[in-house]
């Protein structure tokens, strides 16, 4: 195990220290002078940089909406097919395909599908809706985040379905039976008996998906490139822009460290709950 730990330490600990050093300087690729400025980069990001705050908001909106949609779809489908799970088997392969595809391919597909003139989504909506649907998915700032949300739900909804189905199938029949005998049914049976029994798996699914969603990058890079304007720019995409488009490495490093700080808190609790649930 020594090689594994050494490799990981070398590629995380050293860059981490270096990132702190960079973040404390005005460090632009285009300028040779790199004066020490203390925590000014952090201050600017937190208090003067509306674009940074916007990226946090967009990330939270996209992550929470997509997580909620995927979860509701997954749970609904899992409950529906709980007793008919044999049927799911023959389609499982098919609905798992989106999950295996690279997120960049999903992003590219979304960019075509949501195009208002040649995209097929408006075409299909026109069949279901009266009149000619012409929604400007990609050029409307309020709709662009929705494109990311829907594309992510398309890719990961089936995952939620299958994982929650696995959870339901593993629940103990006896407990349910006792509850049914006691007269529990409908929503109360679900809330008091079914939900607690699938809690560990539920937690794992939500945590894994949530953490992935908080660092959404690939999908954004291909589907909307953060636009129009900055309406769908997530934190990771903004950090990337800071460093690799504006070449402001000081600000980029500071933003990355702020994100790391916020995420570490989430990761700490999340990993702990996953480790516990897995045991």
């Amino acid at each position, binding site marked *: 195990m020594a090689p594994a730990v050494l490799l990981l330490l070398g590629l995380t600990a050293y860059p981490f220290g270096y990132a702190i050093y960079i973040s404390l300087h005005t460090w632009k690729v285009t300028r040779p002078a790199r004066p020490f400025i203390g925590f000014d980069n952090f201050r600017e990001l937190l208090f003067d940089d509306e674009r940074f705050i916007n990226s946090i908001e967009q990330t939270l909106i996209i992550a929470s909406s997509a997580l909620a949609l995927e979860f509701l779809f997954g749970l609904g489908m899992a409950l529906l097919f709980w007793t008919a799970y044999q049927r799911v088997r023959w389609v499982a392969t098919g609905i*798992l395909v989106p999950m295996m595809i690279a997120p960049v391919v999903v992003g590219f597909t979304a960019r075509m599908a949501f195009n208002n003139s040649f995209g097929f989504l408006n075409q299909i909506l026109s069949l279901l809706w009266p009149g000619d649907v012409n929604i400007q998915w990609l050029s409307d700032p309020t709709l662009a985040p929705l494109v990311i949300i829907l594309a992510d739900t398309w890719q990961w909804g089936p995952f939620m379905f299958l994982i929650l189905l696995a959870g339901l199938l593993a629940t103990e*029949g006896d407990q349910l039976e006792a509850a049914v005998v006691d007269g529990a049914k409908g929503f109360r049976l679900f809330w008091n008996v079914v939900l607690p029994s699938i809690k560990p798996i539920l937690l794992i699914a939500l945590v894994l998906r949530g953490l992935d969603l908080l660092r959404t990058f690939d999908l954004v890079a291909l589907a909307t490139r953060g636009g129009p304007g900055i309406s769908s720019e997530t934190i990771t995409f903004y*950090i990337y822009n800071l460093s690799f488009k504006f070449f402001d490495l000081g600000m980029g490093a500071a933003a990355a460290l702020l994100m790391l700080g916020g995420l570490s808190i989430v*990761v700490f609790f999340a990993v702990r709950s996953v480790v516990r649930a897995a045991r």
Partner: protein
Amino acid sequence: MSRVRTRRSPLRRAGTNAGLTAALLLALLLALLPIVWVVLTSFKPELEWVSDPPVWIPGDWTAESYTQMWTDDDGAGALWNSLIIVGIATVAAMTIGSLAAYSFSRFRTGGRHIVTWILSIKFLPPVVFAVPLLIMFTDVGLYDSYRGLILLYTAFQLPFVVWLMKGFFDEIPLEIEESARVDGCSWFSIFTRFALPLSAPGLAATTLLTFIFGWSEYFIPLVFASHEHFTVPVQLSAYFSEAVGLEWGPQAALSVVGILPVVLLALLIQKYLIRGMTFGAVKG
């Protein structure tokens, strides 16, 4: 009462069979329709890429997009880069990772914290380490090289391998190894002669999943490679930044090339997909 009967009663009112089948078919349609669209687009002539209203079936089937993508845009090179980098990194990560996993599983090396630390690395966004690593790699001449990319892919796939393989090793009964130990086998030969063969299905599934994840990786090659070492995902995104306008057909063709191998591999290990996707937490 049998378990089967209980399953039938709770929550669900007698939904009709037809309704369930319809719901499944709808889900299947939703999942596959966009992919069908991409495949069809890759065979369309240029005029139909952006026709409004959209056409599903190509009026005139053509493989021009494939020719352009493969030779003019050097998709062949990107595919080759992907195969080399992801292939070697997968083997490296599997070797280092399963050794580490075995040691965590049998000797609890480093205690629980180190295993948790390894898992948490998986959840950190690579963008955080990108700039310092890039400077570091440029200094030591690893930027834009197979060696550098393979090193990074290996490192970022390790947590996954360690966690999944640890789960598979944990499932092997200790008795076999203990008796081998009594007979005088070294730990390393126990590992190669018993642990690895006994976890062969898990080993195979982990290898393929690692390959699939590596195949999808976008950020590392985006930052650490220039045109010469582009992999399929970066090549796909490069179409958008170039001034030539939008080449939907060749992009769709490249997407098909990118999708095909992973879907075929996924079919082989369908049984282990959920387990892999949850780092072994859900046995599925």
